[in-house]
């Protein structure tokens, strides 16, 4: 072969390079196909297992020791209560942090430290957050003993609050807030960063203060992206089982929550409980509960996509 080759690098005949190119494309398609295949296998196997158990009574009855009588009413309502409370707590806190870091903070050591800290928090396993939730919220660091517990309202009233919180809806919501907060913060920061500087400058040039600029210009411009990020974070919260398990979500509950202090269970925990039992009957209802969970998630993600398509206008 009288091919001239640069001093470094190996000479490779062009047909071999073209063959490598083609083979790599085949590998790509195989890898891609694998992802699609896995998703289909997952959905089909769960549909096969769970479809027969999925009926109205299943949605509308409480847990039971007999799989054919058990239902997910308590878990479904528990999940909705916990996620709604978690959203109310996590969203202002997350967006507030993002606003401070992006719009107010100067590039100081403290700012860099807070930023690094948030990055590190997003890598903490959710079960560790569960342990913190157990200590900080369920038991309030042991500061208040069982004897001098403090409360407002009676156990039936909708505003009932007690300290320490115990294994309650509020504890779960606070714990899940810790889990999703880094996600909400990072998503909001990215959304704020994507707002063109000229919009802010225009508002400031009109004499608005920093906060007026944020409230009337920056936030409205960033809100569709923030909303998408928030919904994705919340859909992560709705699928978490490990932290709920640690803070003491109950397994056999025969009522839906009535206030923030109610005992509760959530869908992922119920699924875990049923899936861990050896009997096939329980596996079938676990699969049915998974189907409900997946429908719930599809509604969430579908909303996120719809918002993205509907509200996102190019700003540049």
């Amino acid at each position, binding site marked *: 072969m009288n091919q001239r080759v640069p001093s470094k690098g190996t000479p490779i005949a062009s047909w071999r*390079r*073209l063959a*490598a*190119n083609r083979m790599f*494309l085949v590998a*790509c*398609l195989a*890898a*891609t196909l694998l*992802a*699609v295949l*896995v*998703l289909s*296998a*997952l959905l089909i*196997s*769960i549909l096969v297992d769970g479809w027969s158990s999925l009926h109205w009574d299943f949605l509308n009855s409480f847990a039971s020791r007999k799989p054919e009588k058990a239902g997910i009413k308590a878990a479904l309502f528990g999940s909705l209560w916990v996620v709604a409370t978690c959203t109310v707590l996590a969203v*202002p806190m997350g967006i*507030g*942090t993002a606003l*401070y870091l992006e719009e*107010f903070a100067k590039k100081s050591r403290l700012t860099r430290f*807070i930023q*690094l*800290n948030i990055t*590190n928090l997003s*890598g*903490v*396993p*959710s*079960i*560790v957050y*569960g*342990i*913190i939730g*157990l200590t*900080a919220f369920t038991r309030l660091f042991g500061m208040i003993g069982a004897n001098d517990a403090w409360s407002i309202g009676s156990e039936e009233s909708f505003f009932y609050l007690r300290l320490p919180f115990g294994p309650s809806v509020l504890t779960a919501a606070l714990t899940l807030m*810790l889990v999703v*907060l880094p996600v909400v*913060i990072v998503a909001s920061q990215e959304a704020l960063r994507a707002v063109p500087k000229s919009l802010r400058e225009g508002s400031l040039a009109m004499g608005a*203060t920093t906060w007026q600029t944020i409230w009337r210009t920056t936030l409205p411009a960033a809100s569709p992206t923030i909303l998408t990020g928030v919904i994705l974070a919340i859909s*992560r919260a709705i*699928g*978490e*089982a*490990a932290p709920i*398990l*640690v803070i*003491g979500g109950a397994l056999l509950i025969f009522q839906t929550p009535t206030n923030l202090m109610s005992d509760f269970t959530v869908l*992922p925990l119920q*699924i*875990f409980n049923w*899936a*861990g039992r050896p009997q096939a009957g329980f596996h079938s209802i*676990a699969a049915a509960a*998974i189907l409900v*969970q*997946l429908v719930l*998630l599809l509604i969430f*993600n579908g909303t996120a996509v719809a918002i993205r398509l509907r509200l996102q206008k190019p700003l540049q």
Partner: protein
Amino acid sequence: MTPVEQSTLAQVTQRGRIVTRASREGAERVVRGALFLCALFSVLTTIAIIAVLAKEALTFFTLPNHPEISVWQFVFGTEWTPLLGAKPGFGVLPLISGTFLVTGIAACVALPVGLITAIYLSEFAPQWLRTPLKAVLELLAGVPTVVYGFFALTFITPDILQRVSRWVTGEEVFGTYNALSAGIAVGIMILPIVCSLGEDALRAVPRALRDGSAALGGTKFDTSIRVVVPAALSGIVAAFLLAITRAVGETMIVALAAGSLPTLTANPAAQVQTMTGYMVQIFLGDAPAGGVEYQSAYAVAAMLFLLTLSLAWIGGMVLRRFREEYD
């Protein structure tokens, strides 16, 4: 005269309240303070995590009726038998080996497949294929981990592993619980992370580098493997490390599919227990609160926290140290 000039001060004040400068600046300071408190909350969270884990782990190491427990024996001990009653062993290595075994299997599944998919998405895939493919990956990313655990337990083990092993060797190699099925499921779980972060890293490589390679006669494969991937290497490694951090901390999959027998083994067909799996076992109520088994869960949690923190730290260092800047 233009309409603006016609409006008097009275008309302006009718439309909007005139706010004095002092009150505007006061409000500004209040808002700024409130937002700063929000930002401070994340620091408080970190302090709480470190304080709680340190205190409870310290309690475990200084339990009065268990003088045999020491940090040395905990970190390097090879016997994890906390529920054995009379003579419990607290050497965390079996749990760590279980965690690493599951994570290693997951990495073998997710890293190559994820990287190839990321390269395909960034360099090769036509637009009409990109959109549905990304949707599939987003769906996989949204599936709760407990669902993957169920999938591992009721599909991967009986329908794939047991069937294939019966067909190949003619005997039952895999039990109901094994490290391989959990590892594969964890791999599926972290696959979307590798794909999307890897793709971001690849896309950030400027077009000029690709054009240069193509102008020198490189095929698309040459360009991707010899130019784009090396240029994006720091981002790809950071994506790998983040995915591995997730795998180490994954709880529900291993709690369902890996079993509950701490074993110091590298055999993927064996039943293993991971650090997270042990914590689930304890907090589900197998052990009374305040006892030695219960406290040991905190020591394991502290270990897990340190492990994930150092992985995140290495990831950040790789990103900073080896980033290639192209402008």
